[in-house]
């Protein structure tokens, strides 16, 4: 086990202003290179956890460390990327290539390097042929992959995927699964698509009411009907006997 984890969270409490806490004393450890699935019912705190991990939502209390360094909320943290649930929230530039280059320009990369990195990220996500297209003209699946390319171009060490298969058709979903299976970066993936978690994650945590109730291998944890039903979830079809 790597002595420095990618993510270390202890006793994390987080809330939106004027509302009761969503995360209630959450503890979590994610190793470098791990592909961790986060499952739980609606309102469990999955998106809140992600917003806290990338520094957008300051915690009420508790410790968050990324790669051994304490997280400083509100500061630009290029080692963490968040892929939003709706790719339309992320895509704003007039062309796909410009959108992918946006983060790199903010990292003050030289233009030559930017062009190469944009090409590499688009190639990795299978969207190189879309480089000159306006992002708003793409299909849902293409938008998703371009949004991922925009994050990966910045070479983050940790990527947070929030419901990445939402609104994707079967072909686009399959393309995303293949991409995630081949991914070498550490990632956390929150989804209601339990079959996706089974295919791409090596560990899974069950989050409910702002706390982690169980952690283990996806097949083992999601195969426990009692545990799943107690938290408003179902055993995925491929694990039913």
């Amino acid at each position, binding site marked *: 086990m790597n002595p420095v984890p990618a993510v270390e969270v202890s006793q994390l409490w987080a809330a939106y202003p004027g509302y009761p806490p969503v995360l209630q004393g959450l503890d979590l450890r994610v190793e470098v290179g791990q592909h961790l699935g986060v499952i739980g019912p609606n309102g469990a705190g999955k998106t809140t956890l992600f*917003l806290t991990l*990338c520094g*957008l939502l300051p915690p009420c209390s508790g410790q968050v460390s990324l790669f051994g360094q304490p997280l400083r909320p509100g500061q*630009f*943290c*290029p080692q*963490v*990327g*968040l892929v*939003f649930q*709706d790719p*339309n*929230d*992320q895509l*704003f*530039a*007039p*062309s796909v290539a*410009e959108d992918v280059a*946006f*983060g790199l*320009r*903010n*990292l*003050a990369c030289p*233009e030559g390097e930017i062009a190469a990195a944009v090409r590499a990220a688009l190639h990795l996500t299978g969207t190189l042929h879309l480089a000159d297209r*306006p992002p*708003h*003209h*793409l*299909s*849902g699946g*293409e*938008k998703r992959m371009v949004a991922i390319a*925009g*994050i990966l171009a*910045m070479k983050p060490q940790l990527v947070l995927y929030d419901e990445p298969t939402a609104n994707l058709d079967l072909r686009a979903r399959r393309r995303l699964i293949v991409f995630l299976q081949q991914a070498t970066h550490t990632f956390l993936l929150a989804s209601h698509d339990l079959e996706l978690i089974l295919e791409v994650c090596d560990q899974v945590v069950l989050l409910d009411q702002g706390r982690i109730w169980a952690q283990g291998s996806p097949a083992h944890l999601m195969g426990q009907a009692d545990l799943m039903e107690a938290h408003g979830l179902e055993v995925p079809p491929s694990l039913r006997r």
Partner: protein
Amino acid sequence: MAKDEAGSGIPCCRRGHQSHPDLPKPPSWLHRWQPLPKVLGLMALMAAFASVRSLTLLPLIWALVAGLWSLSGLPCSLIAPQRCRDGLKRLAAPGLLVAGLMGILPFWAGETLLWRWGSLALRWEGLEMALRIGGRGLALFALTMLLLETTPMLELLAALRQLGIPDLLLELAWLTQRYLQEMAAQWEQMQRAARLRGWRPRGSLWRPGPALRQDLPFLAASVGTLLVRSYERSQRVYQALRLRGYGRAPLFPTAASRDPYSWAATALAVATAVLLRNADAALN
């Protein structure tokens, strides 16, 4: 009209992006004119057009506009009936004002009578004023169209940045035009959903009355929802921008324009503008 694959329902030609996606992009001379010199050249022409007072110069102005339009390679369908109707719908209020002004001026301003029918009198000064306003306005509109249709939006904003327009204003302009279209699409979608559940617009803003008052609760609720949704969307967009380091580098990177042909074209445009000004001064 082309729609996107995701079915957002926004016609391509209404979106902010590089010049019309549903038009072929010929590497025309005007497309190759680099953004910064092009903005300077066209602005010089616009300033000259706006200051022309002599009616005799109007045909020359229009010949210049027609020449530039033909150099741009843009199809005339841009001003074809369908597009005109679409454009006029959006320009209904200001268009009516200008048309009304042009219709009234010849019968209202001036003293030199050209024709009289009862109390209706056509006067030369008013007619001259209407022709001047209409002719110059249309020429300025055509030049603006040329600039927007032949220059990718991002490059245009970068050129404006080089002219000293603050980054914040340009970013606001870019994001506003980008998300106004999103809001318009959402508005259309909400109306479509309401129609599917039996709602029919009974009144119109142009014909206020009891029918419109019946629609008001729905319209008010829709606008309220749209504003709340837009606010939430803007927050998520801002979060996404911040996560990718928004604010650390300009949104519109600028590159020095060294194309000698572009600068030569700008010099030609400026010279034409100066000639027009001088000719106008001589004629007046």
